[in-house]
């Protein structure tokens, strides 16, 4: 899809606003937009938000054979991708000029500045080295991609931990995360890009231009710097002529901005470290709030609430604390028994009922089965009089519990011993259901 064109009136308005030292979002000339850094659950994953611009960084590592001319150095690889999700104007799978420019700048900023000790990535000289790959994805585009991407790259690298390796003689052992704690990369310094947009042939200058400001600017100057005020990369594009004073002034501003951003990054990394140590929730998956508009919506079910209050009062008035419940089996008919008064629900606490079982010691099979939640498997644990009953651990028993009365009759004719045990369980189950409903 084609990019939305910029209208003449927008262009004119923006330039006039810049002349009056005003910006669309109310910032001052040298202000950055809000920077937010959040981490993923895995090491080496982060999302950096610069206003509405959003970049996802992910670091991964791999053991490879080194380059021939650099046998003792690990390999660093950077890849920035501009997905169509970020802005409809980006075309997927095509190396646009912008993308090439940004990738090149990132490499210069992070690899050529030697911010990462590549020699420490060597495992066996000339044979195995670590290849560190930094993937950056632009998730949303609102201008100043390079600053956001450079922050995301360095944050992801700082956050990343590679698996530990030990070399003994010729033997190389790679330890999993469980065996040994993964080790962080050794990072000498943190280069961060700061962009300056120039307007009216360099008369006006803005820090951190947003998308619309980028479209009307005359020139762009990117300075990559670390907090020791060492310039790592400097690039001027769009063919603008700058004076020496301007560049010096920009480098001063960049120094201040880089110090602020570095502090923010360190704070974010420390926070994440702390939370991980304490075992709290971490990662952006946790920090995204569940927006429950319709997710848990349920259909309304009609409920008869005519005499709920009376019923509830009745239950409360008749209820007794569970400890006082004396389970007295009541034999209604041979093979049918009931425990309790039919109001207090005491089958939730299994331990009590099992004690009772042991006390009664199989004097009445029906009660035992009743109190151990119809779990036929447990029948064998309890000493019972009838051995065959224990063995009749078949599907039929379960059917007796679940199926309506007609099945019960059928089975009764088939296995008398089983019915004697199982049939009584029918009634108490029913009662319990009622109780639950009432509660």
């Amino acid at each position, binding site marked *: 899809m084609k990019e939305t064109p910029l209208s003449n009136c927008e262009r004119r308005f923006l330039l006039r*606003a810049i002349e009056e030292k005003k910006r669309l979002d109310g910032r001052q000339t040298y202000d950055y937009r809000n920077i937010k850094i959040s981490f993923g659950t895995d090491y080496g994953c982060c999302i950096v938000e610069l206003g509405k611009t959003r970049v996802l960084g992910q670091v991964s590592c791999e053991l490879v054979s080194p380059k021939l001319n650099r046998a003792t150095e690990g390999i660093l690889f950077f890849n920035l991708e501009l997905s169509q999700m970020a802005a409809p104007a980006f075309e997927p799978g095509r190396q646009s000029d912008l993308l090439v420019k940004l990738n090149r700048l990132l490499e210069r900023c992070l690899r050529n500045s030697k911010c990462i000790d590549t020699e420490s990535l060597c495992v066996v000289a000339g044979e195995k080295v670590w290849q560190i790959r930094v993937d950056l994805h632009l998730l949303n585009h609102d201008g100043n991609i390079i600053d956001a991407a450079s922050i995301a790259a360095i944050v992801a690298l700082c956050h990343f931990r590679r698996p530990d390796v030990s070399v003994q003689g010729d033997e190389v052992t790679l330890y999993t995360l469980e065996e040994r704690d993964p080790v962080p990369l050794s990072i000498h310094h943190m280069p961060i890009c700061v962009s300056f947009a120039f307007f009216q042939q360099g008369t006006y200058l803005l820090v951190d231009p947003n998308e619309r400001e980028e479209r009307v600017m005359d020139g762009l100057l990117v300075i990559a710097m670390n907090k020791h005020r060492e310039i790592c990369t400097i690039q001027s594009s769009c063919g603008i002529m700058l004076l020496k004073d301007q560049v010096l002034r920009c480098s001063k501003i960049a120094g201040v901005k880089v110090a602020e951003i570095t502090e923010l990054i360190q704070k974010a990394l420390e926070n994440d470290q702390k939370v991980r140590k304490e075992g709290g929730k971490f990662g952006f998956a946790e920090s995204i709030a569940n927006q429950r508009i319709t997710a848990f919506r349920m259909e309304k079910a009609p409920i008869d609430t005519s005499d709920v209050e009376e019923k509830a009062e009745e239950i409360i008035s008749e209820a007794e604390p569970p400890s006082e419940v004396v389970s007295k089996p009541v034999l209604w008919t041979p093979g049918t028994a009931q425990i309790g008064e039919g109001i207090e629900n005491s089958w939730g606490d299994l331990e009590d009922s099992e004690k009772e079982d042991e006390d009664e010691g199989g004097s009445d099979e029906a009660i035992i089965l009743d109190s151990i939640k119809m779990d036929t498997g447990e029948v064998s644990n309890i000493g019972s009089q009838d051995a065959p009953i224990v063995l009749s651990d078949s599907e039929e028993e379960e059917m007796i519990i679940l199926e309506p009365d007609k099945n019960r009759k059928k089975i009764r004719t088939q296995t008398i011993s089983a019915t004697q045990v199982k049939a009584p369980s029918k009634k108490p189950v029913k009662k319990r259901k009622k109780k639950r409903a009432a509660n």
Partner: protein
Amino acid sequence: MAEAAAVVAESLAGYRARAARAVLEQVVLPGEELLLPEQEDGEGPGGAGERPLRLNAGARSRRRVVCGPGLRRCGDRLLVTKCGRLRHKEPGSGNDGGVYWVDSQQKRYVPVKGDHVIGIVTAKSGDIFKVDVGGSEPASLSYLAFEGATKRNRPNVQVGDLIYGQFVVANKDMEPEMVCIDSCGRANGMGVIGQDGLLFKVTLGLIRRLLASDCEILQEVGKLYPLEIVFGMNGRIWVKAKTIQQTLILANILEACEHMTADQRKQIFSRLAES
């Protein structure tokens, strides 16, 4: 065959059609099926799953019901195609069933015939202009479709200019076409928008809210500063006040109105009025 397919689709969804009147002002989701009042009377809620629904169930209760955005008539069924709240407008006359539509939150504009939009001229080719309106393809605008324009008297339109116009052709198979005159040949406010002022984008939902006849936001904004403002149904707003500062304030306020309650808004407006 079609009926069988309909029944299968219904059972797959595991969902019985709901009566449109019952879910008014509630959230509906794409794929849901709705029943119009006539259908629920005729067949009862229980029979809905058995028989396919009819929009024109005999002559006895034939009322014109208009399906607005977000609803689609599919054979005899009425389906929801967008996610949002179901709205209904009461009919004007007796033989009218009113209008049903889904109020959804979106930013992507789809041209609709009759909509007034703000476009940006991207190209001049022969006797037509290409205008970007934020849709899937640019709209075309004839140079004769301006007030008082003739073959000799061409309107002064440059590439990059803003155009406020109306769609006369907008459907899924054809290139949309705009005009800047009404049916009487009058401009009626349409045409090229002035060279100053600021253009910005908001969601389509906010535009609809602002254009509602009883919109409080607009009245409150009007009390702040004298201003010129143009709303395009494609989510674009052009605003111009006396100074750049005022224009910026107005633009930011209108953008922020999207997520403010009436109380918050009043607070902000009163604070602005003081300063």
